[in-house]
């Protein structure tokens, strides 16, 4: 009541309106600042080995090729994993990634070795686990793919082993690594 007495009813009403607008503005500003945090999910890239590259048994002196689409091919699953926030399902966004294999040139067995090679079509990738329609690529070269948020990318890897007639018998093995890089584009 004192304020009305001091500055008059009309002026006081004007000030109250200004205060109301400032409060509105502040509320809207706070909402806009925190909106992205509230509705946006955060993601990280994951890559999981589903299958090893398994040539099985073979006779010394023979070569054996596993096609990326064949039994025994290595299989990797690459995903965008939601770590926080709300999933914005139904969006068709994608993240550019590169895939780099570190491939051995030989498999080892207690001091013995045999060669393993990879050709220009030894690898394939697809969005989804269906290899029909998958695209071939050379695993010795870096490959750029689009990783979709709502569909995992699958990568298959084959190869060829070459043994000599005098090849020492037994199990030969070595490690393959796949590195997936998210591009900072």
């Amino acid at each position, binding site marked *: 009541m004192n304020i009305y007495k001091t500055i008059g009813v009309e002026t006081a009403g*004007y000030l109250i309106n200004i205060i109301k607008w400032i409060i509105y503005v502040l509320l809207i500003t706070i909402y806009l600042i925190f909106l992205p945090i509230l509705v*946006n999910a955060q993601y990280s890239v994951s890559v999981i080995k589903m299958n090893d590259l398994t040539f099985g048994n073979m006779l010394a002196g023979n070569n054996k090729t596993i096609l990326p689409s064949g039994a025994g091919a290595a299989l990797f699953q690459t995903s965008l994993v939601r770590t926080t926030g709300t999933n*914005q399902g139904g969006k068709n966004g994608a993240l550019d990634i590169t895939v780099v294999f570190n491939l051995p040139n030989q498999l080892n067995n207690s001091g013995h070795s045999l060669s393993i090679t990879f050709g220009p079509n030894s690898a394939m990738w697809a969005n989804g686990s269906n290899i029909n329609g998958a695209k071939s690529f050379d695993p010795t070269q870096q490959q750029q793919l689009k990783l979709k948020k709502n569909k995992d990318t699958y990568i298959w890897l084959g190869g060829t082993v070459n043994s000599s007639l005098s090849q020492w018998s037994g199990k030969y093995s070595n490690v393959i690594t796949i590195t997936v890089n998210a591009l900072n584009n």
Partner: protein
Amino acid sequence: MIKSIIISLISIFFISGNGWAQIKSHPMASAGISGGYYNGISAITTPATASVVIFKGLSITNIKGLNFGNFAVGAGTVGIASNNKKAAEFEVTGEPQTEVKVTIPSTLINLVSGNASLSLNLYNPAYNTLDDQINAIGAQNNSLFSTNLGVNGTLFIWIGGEVNVLPSTTPGTYNGTITVSVAYVNL
């Protein structure tokens, strides 16, 4: 009043612009993801194993033939058991302790002497990883069996059989061929 609204709107744009800039500078946002952040982990590496198992080549050698010896025309059925010393013997070598399949494609062998012939029916083979016929195991089938090679990668196979010598059988020396095949089961 109008002045306050304009100032307020400028404030809204200025403050919330930081949020937009944050999305735009983000890889996920620039790649077209709506409402998503990429959390900045740029490289993920996973190992896998490449492997192959090499087997030695298989070989099979005929050590001795199935020898019935001599007998008279009309002697009837004459048999030599697979654990008899006169049975045919084969030696298989390959990857130690690895399963193989032994196949005898034909168990009815046609023995020939000139224009005359005599049928030989093979018995179930006997086998052992050692060259020890007395303690050999009898196969359950005369045309196919599977077993593991021994620790030295060997398998010995003995095969007997019988012929029926009729009074009408033409005298002479009769010969034929017994074929034995061997293959790895898991190859």
